[in-house]
C-alpha cells in the first residue's frame, strides 16, 4: 500500500493502461505538455509521446467524435473533457452516438471508450464550471457511469473502465484531487456495479456520491457521538447500480438519506430513492430524505455557494429528520 492523492491514483491508472495496451491513447484539451487543467496527465507526454498523448483544439464534438470512431475501429481511447459543464456543447456525441451506436448496429460493434471529466463546485468557479450532471447520463441507456470518491476507487474503477468494451464515463471530483488514501502497490481493478459499505450502522442508511461520501462520514462520526449509528454506502457506479446492497441496508435501518452535490430536483437521488421505495417499501419507517444542492445555478461568491451546496451539516439534519419523523 502507498498513500497517494486521488490525482496521482488516476494518473497511475492512466499510465498502467497505457503501458498495458498499445491501443490505449489519451485525447483532450491541454493534456499533453500542460498535463491537463487538473494536472492529472502530467508527465505522460514525456513517457508516451505525442502519438499517444494527444492535445486537441477546443472542439469537444470533434474530440468525442474522433474517440468514438477510433473506438469503433480498434483503438481504446481515453478522453478528458476538462469540466463536465462542457459536455453541453457535445452531448450529441455522448448520447446520440456513443450510447446508441452498438444498439443501432444490431450489436455489430463495440465501443471501448472511456471518458473522464471533472465535476462539482466549492471553488467559486461559478455557474458554468461547477455543475454535477450525472443525472443526464444515468438517464441515457448505453452509457456506464462512475463517480469515484477516493484514490483507491479512482484508480481501480478507471482501470476497469479502460478494459470495458463499452462507453464508460468517470466523473472525478475536483475537490478530491488533493485528498489522499491508500492504494495497493500491485495492480488491481475495482468492479463496476458493486457498492461499498463505507461504514456500517444500524439506525439510518446514507447513500452518498463522490465527495458527499466524506461529508457523510464526517456526519456519521458526529452523529455517533450522539449515539446515532449511521451506515454509509458509496454506490461508486451509477450504471450499473448495485441497488441490492442499498436495499439490504435499508431493510436493516428502515431509514434512508441520499446525498449528492447535484441539485435535488431531478437528481439521481430521486432514482436511487425510488428504487428503494419499490424494493423495500415495508421496511421504510420514515420518508426518504434527499440531500443535494438547492435548485439554483451555482453562484460565484463563496458565501452564496456555501448556501447552495450541501455538506455534512445537511446530512446531519437529514438524518435527524428521518429519526424525528413521527407518523
Amino acid at each position: 500500500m502507498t498513500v497517494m492523492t486521488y490525482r496521482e491514483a488516476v494518473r497511475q491508472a492512466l499510465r498502467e493502461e497505457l503501458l498495458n495496451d498499445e491501443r490505449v491513447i489519451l485525447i483532450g484539451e491541454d493534456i499533453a505538455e500542460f498535463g491537463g487543467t487538473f494536472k492529472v496527465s502530467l508527465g505522460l507526454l514525456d513517457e508516451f509521446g505525442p502519438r499517444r498523448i494527444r492535445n486537441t483544439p477546443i472542439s469537444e464534438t470533434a474530440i468525442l467524435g474522433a474517440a468514438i470512431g477510433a473506438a469503433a475501429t480498434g483503438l481504446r481511447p481515453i478522453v478528458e473533457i476538462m469540466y463536465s459543464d462542457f459536455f453541453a456543447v457535445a452531448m450529441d456525441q455522448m448520447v446520440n452516438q456513443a450510447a446508441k451506436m452498438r444498439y443501432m448496429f444490431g450489436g455489430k460493434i463495440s465501443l471501448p471508450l472511456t471518458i473522464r471529466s471533472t465535476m462539482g463546485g466549492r471553488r467559486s468557479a461559478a455557474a458554468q464550471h461547477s455543475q454535477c450532471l450525472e443525472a443526464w447520463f444515468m438517464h441515457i441507456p448505453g452509457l456506464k457511469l462512475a463517480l469515484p470518491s477516493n484514490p483507491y476507487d479512482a484508480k481501480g474503477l478507471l482501470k476497469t473502465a479502460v478494459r470495458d468494451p463499452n462507453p464508460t464515463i468517470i466523473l472525478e471530483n475536483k475537490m478530491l484531487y488533493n485528498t489522499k488514501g491508500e492504494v495497493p502497490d500491485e495492480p488491481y481493478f475495482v468492479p463496476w456495479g458493486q457498492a461499498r459499505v463505507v461504514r456500517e450502522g444500524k439506525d439510518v442508511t446514507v447513500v452518498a456520491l463522490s465527495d458527499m461520501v466524506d461529508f457523510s462520514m464526517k456526519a456519521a462520526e458526529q452523529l455517533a457521538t450522539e449515539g446515532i449509528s449511521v451506515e454509509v454506502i458509496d454506490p461508486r457506479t451509477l450504471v450499473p447500480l448495485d441497488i441490492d446492497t442499498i436495499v439490504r441496508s435499508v431493510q436493516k435501518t428502515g431509514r434512508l438519506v441520499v446525498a449528492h452535490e447535484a441539485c435535488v430536483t431531478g437528481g439521481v437521488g430521486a432514482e436511487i430513492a425510488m428504487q428503494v421505495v419499490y424494493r423495500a417499501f415495508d421496511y421504510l419507517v420514515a420518508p426518504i430524505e434527499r440531500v443535494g444542492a438547492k435548485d439554483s445555478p451555482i453562484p460565484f461568491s463563496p458565501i452564496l455557494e456555501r448556501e447552495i451546496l450541501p455538506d455534512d451539516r445537511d446530512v446531519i439534519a437529514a438524518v435527524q429528520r428521518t429519526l424525528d419523523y413521527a407518523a
Partner: protein
Amino acid sequence: MTEALDSRIPKEVALQLYETMQRIRQFELTVVDLFARGKIPGFLHTYVGEEAVAAGACKALRPDDYIISTHRGHGHLIAKGGQFDLMMAELFGRRTGYCKGKGGSMHIAEPALCMLGANAIVGAGIAIINGAALTAQYLGLDRVAVAFFGDGASNTGAFHEALNLASVWNLPSIFICENNGYAESTPQRQHQKIKDIAVRAIAYDIPSSIVDGNDVGAVYLATLEAVTRARSGGGPTLIEAKTYRWRGHYEGDPQMYRSKAEIEAWEKKCPIARWRSVLIASGIPVAELDAIDQRIQEELERAVAFAEQSPWPDPSEARADIFTPTPEVA
C-alpha cells in the same frame, strides 16, 4: 453530343461504376414503391439522382477503407458492397436485416464492410470519421476514411470542428460534400452565402476540389486523387460534388419549395443515362448494359422476397445489444 470515356478510367471500372449507380437507383425506386405500399416503416430519404457520388467515390476505395454516411445512406452502403437482401430486410424491420431491425434506414450499417453507419444527426458522422482515420494513421495502416454529408451539414459545428481536427492531425480523412442544393426544404442560398462549399477548405488549410456530382467518372477521379494523397500521409481533402436529389427530402415531402421545372431540368442530367451514353459511345454493347440492369432487377426481387419472408425480431430481443458483455478483469 456524348462525352468520351476518360482515358484514366479502365473499361471494367467504367462498367462497375455503371452497375453500382444502377444498383442504387433500382434499389431506391423499389423501396419508394414499398414505402408507399406501407411495407417499410419510419422515414425514407432516397438517393435518387445522386448515385454518381457514392458510386464514384466508393470505387476509389479499398474494401478496408472506412466510410460513414447520413440520413440518406442507402447509396453509400450499396456502393461499399451492401447486399440488397440484408438491406431490404433491415428497412422492413426484420431480424435478418443488417442491424437486426434495430437501426432501419437512418442507421443502416455494416462494420464488416467498413461502413460505419447512416446517421440521423446531421453533421455527426463528419466528426466520427476522424476516429477511423486516426486508427488507420495510428496503426500505420494505409487506409483512408470517407465521410459523406450534405450542403446543409456543412453549416453544423461538427463540420467545422472535424475538418480542423483532421487538418491539425493530418488525418487520412476525406470529406465528401454532396451539395444537392437543399437542406431539407431550404435552398442553399438561404442557408449559406457561399456558392462553393469547397472554399471552406481554406479555413483549415487543406486541399479541396469541386466536381460535377452527376459525372461518376469525375467523382471517381477526384476521390482517387484525395485517396492517393491521404494514403501517402498527405492528410485530408474536402471534395464538393454538385448534384441534385430528384425526390422529396423524404418520401411524402410535398416539395412546395421548388418547381417542377427545376426538377425536370436536373432529371435531364441523369447521371446514369449520361454514363450509359459514355459507355455505349466507348463501344460497350447495349445488351451488356441491359443484362446488368436485368440482373439487378432480379436480385432486387429476391431481396424483397427475402425481406417479406424474414421473421420479425422477437420482442425479447429488444433490449439485447445495448452493452457488449464485459470480460472479467483480474
